[in-house]
């Protein structure tokens, strides 16, 4: 067998694959179940973007914080939030991750360092600055990651946070998940500069752009800037150029897409296919080993859906609890 050319050992590669596959199955299953009318509310799917979330979050521990976006399921799974509790939350169940009070857009688990998906675009960036500030006071080398899409990268909160993080030299990393669309509007229409590296430079931050469909490119770039932040080297920006398999939200007819666009990205820019090809091609992992994970993940998601559907709903008594710690 050839040597391992990758930055992770075999166990690490299998873990990363399992995370990405879990996100994919979770999201594709939600797509089907939402279409059937099983799920209330708004759902925004991360399918196609897995390499970015997992490539970055693989470097983090529970003490490192993540401020996510409206498209947050992938970040939550990567950060270790319980998949069954997440599914229950999305179904609005009492023992969901947030007792059914948050739903898809507000899944959080502070014990896991997940500061929450967020329904307000760009709102996570200042919160990540705060998490990074708290880390700086704790002096344990922890970091905070703020995810935004290319759309929310135009929000004042995001731009102000770049400046604040630079001024305070915070251990914060700002990840732009550039999937090419702000809802239905092309990135090229809504962002006046071509490169987020230029935008970062305007705020005094180093920036890197990577192919966000290439797990290894993301993993290596993230590893470098996270290490720098842990060592007191300050904030950075990481742009991941990636693709969104589904619409902005479920139910989006996506008529703004070009002809054949979705077929093309599914065939040629699928981060899971690229990962599988790389690790099997190098002879580090056998196709059967990946298939075994696929099978296992399918069972996990099937079980999560079954449990979520069977789980009890909150009662009216739950309506007025947990507004305050004490009132």
């Amino acid at each position: 067998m050839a040597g391992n050319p990758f930055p992770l050992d075999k166990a690490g590669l299998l873990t990363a694959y399992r995370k990405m596959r879990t996100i994919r199955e979770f999201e594709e299953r939600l797509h089907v179940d939402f279409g059937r009318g099983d799920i209330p509310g708004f759902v925004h799917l991360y399918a196609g973007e897995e390499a970015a979330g997992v490539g970055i979050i693989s470097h983090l521990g529970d003490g490192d914080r993540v401020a996510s976006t409206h498209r947050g399921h992938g970040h939550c799974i990567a950060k270790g939030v319980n998949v069954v509790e997440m599914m229950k939350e999305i179904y609005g169940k009492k023992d969901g991750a947030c007792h059914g009070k948050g739903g898809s857009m507000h899944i959080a688990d502070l014990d896991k360092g997940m500061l929450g998906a967020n329904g307000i675009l760009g709102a996570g960036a200042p919160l990540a600055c705060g998490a990074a500030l708290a880390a700086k006071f704790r002096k344990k080398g922890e970091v905070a990651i703020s995810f935004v899409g290319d759309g929310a990268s135009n929000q004042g909160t995001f731009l102000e946070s770049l400046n604040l993080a630079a001024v305070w030299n915070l251990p914060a990393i700002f990840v732009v998940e550039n999937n090419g669309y702000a809802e239905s509007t092309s990135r090229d229409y809504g962002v006046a500069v071509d490169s987020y590296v230029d935008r970062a430079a305007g705020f005094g931050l180093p920036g890197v752009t990577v192919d966000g469909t290439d797990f290894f490119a993301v993993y290596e770039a993230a590893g470098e800037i996270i290490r720098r932040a842990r060592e007191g080297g300050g904030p950075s920006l990481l742009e991941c150029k990636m693709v969104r398999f589904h619409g902005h939200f479920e139910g989006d007819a996506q008529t703004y897409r070009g002809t054949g666009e979705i077929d093309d990205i599914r065939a040629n820019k699928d981060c899971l296919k690229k990962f599988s090809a790389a690790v099997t091609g190098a002879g580090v992992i056998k196709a059967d080993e990946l298939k075994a994970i696929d099978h296992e993940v399918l069972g996990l998601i099937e079980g999560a859906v079954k449990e979520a559907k069977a789980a009890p709903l909150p009662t009216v008594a739950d309506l007025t609890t947990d507004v305050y710690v004490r009132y």
Partner: protein
Amino acid sequence: MARKISMKQAINEALDQEMARDPSVIVMGEDIVGGAGGDGERDAWGGVLGVTKGLYAKHGDRLMDTPLSESAYIGAAIGAAACGMRPVAELMFIDFMGVCFDQIYNQAAKFRYMFGGKAQTPVVIRTMVGAGFRAAAQHSQMLTPLFTHIPGLKVVCPSTPYDTKGLLIQSIRDNDPVIFCEHKNLYGIEGEVPEASYTIPFGEANVVREGKGCSIVTYGLMVHRSLDAAAALAKEGVECEVIDLRTLSPLDIDTVLESVTKTGRLVCVDEASPRCSIAADVSAQVAQQAFGALKGPIEMVTPPHVPVPFSPPLEDAYIPSAAQIAAAVKRTFAGGKH
């Protein structure tokens, strides 16, 4: 007998004592130290009106000057609170809240509920409120009702140095987000304040003058105007009970109801704009819960529904006066049952 200090000194002392007691307390805001990065004096300002002056010498880098960037640093204070710190962020004027309101009402206020009770956000946002400073429409508002409206926030607005110290310490130790409103025209008033640390619980109104004729319910600077009105009315034989709400969320409606049950009359005095105000809220709750006790119509004394004007005669006319409050008390007698 405790010594007398100003409200401004009471705030400074509360921050100082809490920073000394608890290393997780940090203080941030625009120019709260002053002179950052310059060649001149550090601690040049201690806040735009000098409230935090001197704390830097004692607590160093736990006081952080921020860029002029309210969304970022108020959000950072909230994020740090969710990650184990107890930040006290100063937002110079409540009028600037619009710039960072999302972080307060969509983030801080909702974390606990939205995350199923698994988060707590012990952040305090100190901010100046109120008119009378010739500071015009964007530096003079009393926006307390905006924050009182939001579930998940607590709103405090003290009227004396004693209450200020005790309520600010309580705010810092409290595990929910608190909007701490400081009336800029009360910074200079002096009162007795113990040197030792103490807290005043939220949701406990203070009966600052007892009387059987009419209840006047108010907070902040208007407590003083109401006391002036009550003193004038006493000379005419009308004894008013003046209630200082102190905290607007939670609201001590029980003390108000008890008083109205005794007096049968209610005047609500509020420096906020009249619509959907604290005065309107208290009036509605009393009408709903103590209608049978009322001997006359409920009166409200508020500014007119206009922005705060600049020109001194206009601003003086804008702010509710003791004479207007006294006239309102008399109307509760004129229009009511005897």
